């Protein structure tokens, strides 16, 4: 383990490894005989491969093998009927442009790259459609129900309200684009023993998926993923390219490393699907909501359905007796999407939180007053009280800090030269999850504590949070506590997703620490020591080098009685240039209402990250397809604009930091999603306040402002 010289208990436990370049990500493991795989991808969007000429590639220097549907290595699950349609190398069908169709393995990366360019595919092309809006309009195109229709009270009550609005909102495809490129190292050894170094948000999930495809026991597969260079959702599944790499290793009997290109990051590892949403809102003249209707369509692929919680928020976020929602998915000839930070809730919140602002304007009310007036006392969807909710306090803190009193309700009122200033607010909400996880704790007579769990850290600071939980419960200094993760042989934990890791794994850490404290107390009592005796003395007196406890932890019946959510309030100030249409986010105040803050430094960073992601969603991010060819045309960091340093102002992060009495022993709720959910609407609302222009199509680019 690394030498600990952290100056502050709240510093990241892996900080030194990360700033010195010693943190090892999946592609950085040295294995004897390592080979390099490069994927060949389809150049058509739909059809069949009729011929694949691999001769030139096979004869290129350094090439060990070319693997495709022609010589597919055995993958028993793919040999059976049924299952997924996209069985890599077990189908000659092309479902989208850029689909992997072969892998070339060579002894250097450069040789594999060159040889991959020599593989020539011939195709029988079929007609395709990658245009979501076109599919939506086409009566013959499939629309599949994505979630059960929801109705409370009167359907479409907004239509007969005193004040009503109905607006349509469009969100384009966004791409996760973590800084680390995706890939895997697979090392298939004799007797079906497999070690992989993966970029995954769940080592147990990766282990399970591979076991399932190759029909080998889970115990035969070791998944290592100690450091993950960001995921934002895209590493929540094992992608076909990873299965292809395992196949390649199995085929050649050597370890194979695949690191895909940034361009392939747009086609092989999912995206946030485009969505078209209609919101209908009705209110009485006093500003009470009387009807909410949220209808959404999300994009999916033709070979696999993808759904997310786009319309969830409308069902409970505002006090309203009449609510109805529908959600359908529309297949197009693109790669299957996957949850991207905030997932569907962030998509839905853009529409709902924009519409709420529009209704406040229609009522000539301050949007903050309108929000507070319609703040729900209980969860009307579940008909339960919230376990904890401090939204009004959060609105108050944020309003003061952003200087909401400087805002004028009349749009376009604050002008200084060419710059128009506006203020916007929105709310984000996400289910406060808690799953089931196991943690092993080893308390040693040398004064140290080792905690182990097969969880992940894609960046939020899992190890830091867990260490601080143990530090508080056991009074062991932070530098004597080690939390090990990212290893499938450790006690099982779920994947890192849905803002659940701290709540889920942290609870198991809590239970382990409580059990270790009891065990020490019992040992102390049995050896006639004082109940307050130091655990080191107790262990030494009992001649024990260490004691060990493993605990599985999960929630009880508290969810039967309470509705559990995390909340965030986003306040932004924007400056819009009236001549060029440039929007600068000039000030951000975020207020998190997510129970106890266990790890203040990393929690603040998560809120910063959500705001930065939100700026991208609001102003710059859009994966653009040339629908004539079905190809992405901005599949790189020069053309797909994620926010850079100069796009981001200082961000004032605040936390309510009050424990949730019911969710878990720490009273802590997840934060990863709420940091982003709703943020894009706060920007859109601020742009409206600055200019009087309501932009309902993201991203809010200058052309839309000037139009």
């Amino acid at each position, binding site marked *: 383990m690394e030498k600990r010289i952290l100056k502050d208990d709240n510093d990241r436990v892996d*900080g030194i490894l990360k700033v010195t370049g010693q943190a090892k990500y999946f592609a950085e493991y040295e294995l004897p005989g390592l080979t390099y795989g490069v994927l060949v991808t389809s150049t058509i969007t739909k059809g069949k491969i009729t011929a694949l000429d691999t001769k030139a590639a096979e004869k290129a220097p350094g090439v060990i093998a070319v693997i495709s549907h022609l010589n597919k290595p055995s993958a028993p699950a793919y040999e059976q009927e049924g299952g997924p349609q996209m069985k890599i190398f077990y189908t000659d069908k092309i479902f989208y442009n850029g689909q992997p169709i072969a892998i070339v393995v060579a002894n250097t990366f450069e040789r594999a790259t060159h040889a991959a360019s020599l593989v020539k595919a011939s195709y029988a092309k079929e007609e395709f459609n990658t245009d979501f809006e076109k599919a939506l309009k086409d009566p013959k195109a499939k629309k599949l129900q994505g979630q059960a229709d929801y109705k409370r009270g009167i359907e479409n009550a907004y239509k007969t309200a005193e004040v009503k609005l109905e607006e349509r909102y469009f969100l384009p495809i966004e791409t996760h684009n973590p800084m680390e490129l995706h890939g895997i190292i697979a090392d298939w050894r004799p007797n079906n023993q497999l070690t992989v170094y993966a970029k995954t948000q769940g080592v147990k999930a990766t282990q399970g998926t591979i076991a399932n495809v190759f029909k080998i026991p889970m115990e035969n597969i070791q998944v290592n993923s100690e450091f993950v260079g960001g995921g934002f959702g895209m590493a929540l599944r094992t992608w076909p390219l990873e299965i292809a790499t395992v196949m390649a290793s199995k085929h050649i009997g050597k370890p194979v490393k695949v690191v895909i290109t940034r361009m392939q990051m747009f086609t092989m590892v999912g995206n946030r699907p485009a969505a078209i949403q209609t919101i209908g809102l009705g209110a009485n003249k006093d500003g009470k909501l009387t009807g909410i209707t949220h209808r959404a369509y999300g994009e999916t692929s033709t070979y696999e359905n993808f759904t997310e919680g786009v319309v969830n928020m409308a069902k409970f976020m505002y006090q309203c007796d009449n609510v109805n929602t529908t959600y359908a998915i529309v297949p197009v000839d693109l790669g299957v999407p996957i949850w991207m930070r905030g997932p569907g809730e962030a998509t839905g919140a853009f529409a709902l939180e924009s519409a709420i602002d529009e209704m406040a304007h229609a009522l000539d009310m301050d949007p903050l007053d309108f929000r507070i007036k319609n703040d729900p006392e209980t969860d009307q969807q579940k008909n339960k009280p919230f376990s904890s909710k401090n939204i009004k306090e959060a609105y108050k803190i944020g309003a003061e800090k952003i200087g909401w009193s400087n805002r004028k309700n009349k749009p376009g009122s604050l002008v200084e030269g060419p710059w128009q200033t506006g203020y916007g607010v929105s709310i984000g909400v996400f289910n406060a999850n808690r799953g089931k996880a196991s943690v092993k704790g080893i308390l040693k007579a040398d004064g140290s504590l080792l905690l182990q769990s097969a969880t992940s850290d894609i960046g939020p600071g899992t190890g830091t949070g867990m260490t601080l939980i143990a530090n508080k419960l056991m009074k062991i200094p932070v530098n004597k506590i080690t939390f090990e993760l990212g290893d499938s042989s450790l006690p099982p934990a779920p994947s890192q997703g849905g803002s659940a890791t701290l709540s889920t794994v942290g609870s198991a850490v809590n239970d382990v620490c409580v059990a270790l404290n009891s065990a020490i107390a019992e040992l102390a009592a049995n050896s006639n020591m004082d109940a307050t005796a130091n655990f080191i003395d107790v262990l030494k007196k009992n001649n024990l080098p260490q004691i060990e406890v493993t605990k599985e932890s999960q929630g009880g019946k508290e969810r039967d009685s309470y509705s559990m959510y995390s909340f965030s309030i986003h306040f932004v100030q924007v400056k819009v240039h009236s001549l060029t249409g440039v929007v600068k986010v000039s000030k951000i105040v975020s207020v998190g209402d997510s129970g106890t803050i266990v790890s203040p430094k990393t929690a603040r960073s998560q809120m910063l990250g959500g705001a930065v992601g939100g700026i991208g969603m609001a102003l710059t991010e859009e994966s653009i397809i040339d629908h004539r060819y079905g190809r992405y045309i901005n599949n790189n960091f020069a053309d797909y604009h994620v926010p850079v340093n100069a796009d981001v102002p200082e961000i004032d992060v605040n936390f309510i930091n009050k424990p949730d009495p019911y969710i878990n022993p720490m009273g802590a709720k997840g934060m990863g999603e709420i940091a982003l959910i709703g943020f894009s609407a706060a920007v859109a609302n601020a742009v409206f306040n600055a200019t009087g222009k309501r932009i309902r199509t993201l991203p809010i680019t200058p052309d839309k402002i000037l139009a």
Partner: protein
Amino acid sequence: MKSSDQKPNQGDSRRDFLKKSSVITAIALTPGVAVKAAESNADERFAELFEKIPLKLTVNNKAYQTTVEPRVTLLDYLREELHLTGTKKGCDHGQCGACTVHVDGQRVNSCLSLAVMNEGKKITTIEGLANGDTLHPMQAAFIKHDGFQCGYCTPGQIMSAVACVREGHTNSRAEISEYMSGNICRCGAYPNIVDAIIEVKQGGETL
């Protein structure tokens, strides 16, 4: 790329390369010979003779004398040959800054530099920044201000930040942000990165 399009390198190695590359061209013109060579596993020996050229450079104060294919980027050379994996590959197109290293003291995207272009040059990577167990002030400031989350862009950010201070582009938050905008952080640690740079600048140490 045709061999005639190659940017001239200096010294004997360039002349050697031209001589050898014309032999490669000749082989390429006679596929039968090349195929035969490949089938008899002669390609490895050909590669050694014709495809690799000598390279001398210093990385983190350690001298290396080696041969390398001219198409190998400095980034891949550092990561795959020298196993200095602190330098990261984020895009391979000079668009993200994750691969930033110092070449003769200047910050450079190592993915846009071929290894052979660095003949005789002094390279510093993230692994060469600390002084033994003592962190470089920028590394310490990144920890203090939590200037990262996943850590993947971090080595590039830190190498760029050190250069940014040396270049004197630290006179305001806005100036720092501008001169750090070639380094993308998808986790969104930008405000913390700026805080770290301000702290180092105010510390006044010569970097």
